[in-house]
């Protein structure tokens, strides 16, 4: 196993652990939690392409389902696999899309991810559409802001940079 693989595996494990212990806050009696895994998946998609993003998205999703919501096992795996495919598109257009366009695309992918997930989660549950929409948007925004912060802070030539 070469050095890159060891670092990649370690980073994956670290992200998983961080996701498990990340703090939760309450909004309208519903738990809001930042999704670090989707941010990690954004980088995988951007640097390694669709295939790895899909596989890793599925593994992350299943792990997340097993840890947090066994009664909806498969829902996060489904949405993260689909989003892995979408985020992997970033690698195809790395030199074509502008940073602004990439950010819009990433936000849309995050939004789609939470839309899919909460479609499964709120299906058949009596909850208003407005609250559902707010939760989806808050989750998407929170993850997106964290992504921007991380990208701007730790990756000078990252996804939002012009130097790609």
């Amino acid at each position, binding site marked *: 196993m070469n050095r890159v693989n060891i670092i990649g595996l370690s980073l994956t494990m670290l992200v998983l652990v961080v996701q498990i212990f990340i703090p939760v806050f309450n909004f309208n009696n519903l738990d809001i939690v930042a999704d670090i895994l989707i941010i990690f998946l954004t980088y995988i998609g951007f640097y390694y*392409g*669709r*295939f790895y993003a*899909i*596989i890793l*998205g*599925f593994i992350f*999703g*299943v792990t997340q*389902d097993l840890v947090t919501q066994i*009664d*909806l*096992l*498969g*829902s996060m*795996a*489904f949405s993260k*696999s*689909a989003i*892995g*495919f979408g985020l*992997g598109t970033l*690698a*195809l257009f790395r030199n074509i899309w502008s940073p602004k366009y990439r950010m819009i695309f990433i936000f849309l992918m995050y939004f789609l991810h939470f839309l899919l997930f909460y479609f*499964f*989660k*709120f*299906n*058949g*549950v009596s909850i208003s559409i407005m609250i559902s929409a707010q939760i989806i948007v808050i989750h998407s925004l929170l993850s997106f802001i964290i992504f921007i912060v991380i990208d701007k802070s730790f990756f000078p030539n990252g996804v939002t940079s012009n130097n790609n």
Partner: protein
Amino acid sequence: MSKSRVPFINKDALALLLTLIFSALLLLTQDSSQIRQLKFQVAKLVNTLAYPITWYNSIFSIRVENKLLKKQLVQFTLMNSELESYHEENIRLKEMLNFTMTQPLNFLTANVVGYNFGLPTQSITIDIGNDDGVTKNLPIMDEKGLLGKTFKVGEHASLAQLITDKNFRVSVRIGQERAIGLFIPTHGKYGILEGVRKSMPLNEDEVAFTSGISEIYPPNIPVARVVSIQLDDNNPFQHIVVELVGSLESLDYVFVVL
């Protein structure tokens, strides 16, 4: 983009497809309320999408079903008519049974197996003959009245001359005074009584019975009912039109009087 060794298989799309299928399988194996609702929605969607195919197939199944139902309808109609026939037969047999139990005469019951209403002799064929004790010139009747007499007897079947045959004659008694007359058939179920004198008081609907004078017919078998009476100054006898009492319309069974 990563390329597969097989050019027409996109590795990314295949990975996506497999992971989505596996995720969906995992999801659908759960039994939470959300998943139950999801299954319901999916089933509803599939049902809606498959409606044209279902509708198209249903036309064929309806055609087959229609054909089958038509066949069954014919069968049931036949069965129904058969049952109605049995019902009628049952009523008739009950009447006959009741009749034979109240009569002092000895009877043989026979099935009518053939009709001949044409020339030269109006007759019926019955399914009993010598072997059953039938001989020539035995009266036949139904539960209502006289129908004729046997005139040809075989081992297992006999021919009987009907009362409507133009050559048939039977001596009768009628009225309070038991006047003697002769029944002669005219057409159909009608006939005339000859030889009843004018002085004999007679009313319509009176019934003529066999007289007992004949060696063939025992006395008091109903023969005919008076329909009309005419008196002619030039004729010493009454002109009496009568209608047969026995029923020739549904000849299925008859009695042979021994």
